[in-house]
């Protein structure tokens, strides 16, 4: 029974740490391994990707797996073939793991209910991008030596960001404090739903931050007009050297990529000594090697194919006190 990696919200702290340790192991071995020889991994990306898709491809092949990349634009999807039919067709070709990215939240859960192979979420709508979350965690741990008690500040279009959500779950489960910064119209509708603190003030949010993560303005997900103009956004929330002066002395700057040049980050910050953006990309391959190994190599009796459990143990309690968390403890209306 294969495991799935669908989201960080449903993983426990030990599981996340195991994945990070495994990824670090691949870093130390310079990416060598043969654990997946004889297996086939397929990627099914309904949204564009450079980093994620290429790093899964490299990761699979470095571990000895065969890699199958489905080119959606030239597939029968253009003839109207449904998502489930496409996934089941690929599975029927003889695939051990399916890496899927889709603009609709929840797709990996839907696919996991209908295929027998392992499913990895490479980004579902606005909900989660768990391997990116692991990349971010690993990068911080490498640069700052720890995660607990760090102040992590995420700036930008949080409302539409799956990267922000995965980071919120991952960092808070490992003991960090997460703060979201952005204009009111780009912060989550209900900030109490996530284990984060929200503020519209970049000064407050970046004050003493150990990690500043800038997010891409998700123009393709905004209804249009969430902010009056990109210039307005950049003037107030663009991460520049001036605002970075407020952060902790060893603070690092991250971005999941791709970057809208000059908008979320000024060029000097993006290329400066605090930036770990290239390290994130490099770590991407190792994290995906660890992920593929985790879902395939070690067949665990407990599958994560079910919907996220409702018991309070697996959902992190908020680090900063706020009200209204009864909805997280599995009470029904």
């Amino acid at each position: 029974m294969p495991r799935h990696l669908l989201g960080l919200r449903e993983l426990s702290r030990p599981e996340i740490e195991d994945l990070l340790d495994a990824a670090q192991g691949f870093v130390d071995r310079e990416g060598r391994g043969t654990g997946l020889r004889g297996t086939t991994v397929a990627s099914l990306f309904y949204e564009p990707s450079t980093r994620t898709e290429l790093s899964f491809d490299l990761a699979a092949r470095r571990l000895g797996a065969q890699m199958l990349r489905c080119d959606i634009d030239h597939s029968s999807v253009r003839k109207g073939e449904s998502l489930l039919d496409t996934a089941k067709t690929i599975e029927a070709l003889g695939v051990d793991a399916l890496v899927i990215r889709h603009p609709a939240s929840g797709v990996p859960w839907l696919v996991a209910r209908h295929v027998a192979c392992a499913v990895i979420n490479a980004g579902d709508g606005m909900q989660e991008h768990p391997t990116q979350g692991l990349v971010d965690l690993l990068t911080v741990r490498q640069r700052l030596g720890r995660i607990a008690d760090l102040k992590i500040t995420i700036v930008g279009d949080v409302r539409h960001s799956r990267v922000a959500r995965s980071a919120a779950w991952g960092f808070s489960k490992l003991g960090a404090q997460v703060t979201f910064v952005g204009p009111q119209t780009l912060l989550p509708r209900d900030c109490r739903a996530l284990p984060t603190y929200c503020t519209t003030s970049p000064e407050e949010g970046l004050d003493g931050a150990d990690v500043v993560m800038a997010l891409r303005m998700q123009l393709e997900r905004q209804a249009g007009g969430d902010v009056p103009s990109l210039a307005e956004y950049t003037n107030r929330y663009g991460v520049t050297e001036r605002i970075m002066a407020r952060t902790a002395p060893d603070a690092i700057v991250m971005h999941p990529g791709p970057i809208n040049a000059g908008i979320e980050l000024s060029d000097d910050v993006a290329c400066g000594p605090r930036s770990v953006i290239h390290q994130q990309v490099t770590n991407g391959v190792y994290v995906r090697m660890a992920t593929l190994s985790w879902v395939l190599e070690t067949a665990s009796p407990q599958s994560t194919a079910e919907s996220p459990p409702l018991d309070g143990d697996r959902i992190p309690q908020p680090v900063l006190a706020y009200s209204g968390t009864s909805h997280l403890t599995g009470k029904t209306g």
Partner: protein
Amino acid sequence: MGLLIRNGTVLDPSTRVQRRADMLIIDENVAAIEGSIAPQRGVDVIDATGLLVAPGLVDMHVHLRDPGQTHKEDIASGTLAAVRGGFTTVACMPNSAPPIDHPTVVEYVKSRAGAASCRVFPIAAITKGQAGKELVPIAALAAAGAVALSDDGVSVADAGLLRRAMSYATMFDLPVIEHCEDLTLSAGGVMHEGSWSTVLGLRGIPAVSEEAIVARDLLLAEETGARLHIAHVSTAGSVRLIRDAKGRGVRVTAEVTPHHLVLTDEAVQGFDVNVKMNPPLRSADDVDAMREALIYGTIDAIATDHAPHAPEEKSVEFDAAPFGVVGLETALSVVWTALVQTGLLSPVQMLQKMSAAPATILNIPGGRLRVGEAADLVLIDPDRRWTVDPSTFVSKSRNTPFEGWTLTGKAVMTIVGGEIKHNELMAEKAGLGTRD
């Protein structure tokens, strides 16, 4: 030809009377309701010991998909599902293909209804094609037999047009049924906007998208004197607006679905499309407000908004799935289990909400038991437990949020015009030799 229903507890929501009695049905009508009626020749005996004998349920909000979308449901299968759920009358919404925006389509529905399992009353559209631009021929539709007007599926976005429709409809005393939703506020939403939509990364439908139009429609109804009926109320804010309007004498009535009385947005975890409907499942506070509104009368009726979709249409990602769930075969049991068994509603109150009030609002027969009137009845076994298995539904569609639920209280026999249309009683109890 007749039936003698013996030893049941007869409930009449119109008189609030509840008593042990026998009921005699001759041909199509109720012939007698007395403490004890002797068996007669040519009359089959039904032993209703332990059962409630009540007027058949009336569902004023059903999508039969006929004409034009009959892969999802048609009048035959939809009415079969209705009687299985204890309904003897349904009113069907006009968003078929073509929509019920012309007397010929009313005629079609009525002709199909002749062979159906229960009574069917057509609701006509407000605007041609439900496009929100031109009024339908209201007088002709009323004459043809439409019992209400609705563009259900959408609001009439043009307030000036709705005002004219309401004003005109007053001449025929037709209720105007509004699906209240401001599409510029709900834009792209697929579930309630709240903490769960934030966690799940799904676009939300905010409560205000319903309340803004409820407020507008109440003001227009007040000004025109029209009879307004608010379909599928789902938010506490809507309830507050309706309550205030009723207090001012506005002629408004309102309905709520069974699923909005028991499920919250938390159910969307897992992304099962069988919990995707519009209006969406809301918060626990909203569910509490719906129950309270039902008990205190701000909400007059329970209606299922039975919205069948074929299995292949629903087996897609959550964002892409059509909105809607079926409800005819589970409504009575869900309401009985969640509200009657728990003491929030008495059986008589339940029948008011599910039989008498819908009939009164639409000005159609139903909701009471009278000697000389049609024998449209449901026999309810208040103790029967059963588990919802959609593969056994008689509807063409299976999209229910209640799969696997164990419910108490079931319609074990449904009688329409003196004819047994649904029978789950034990054969020996029925005394009819063979079960239907």
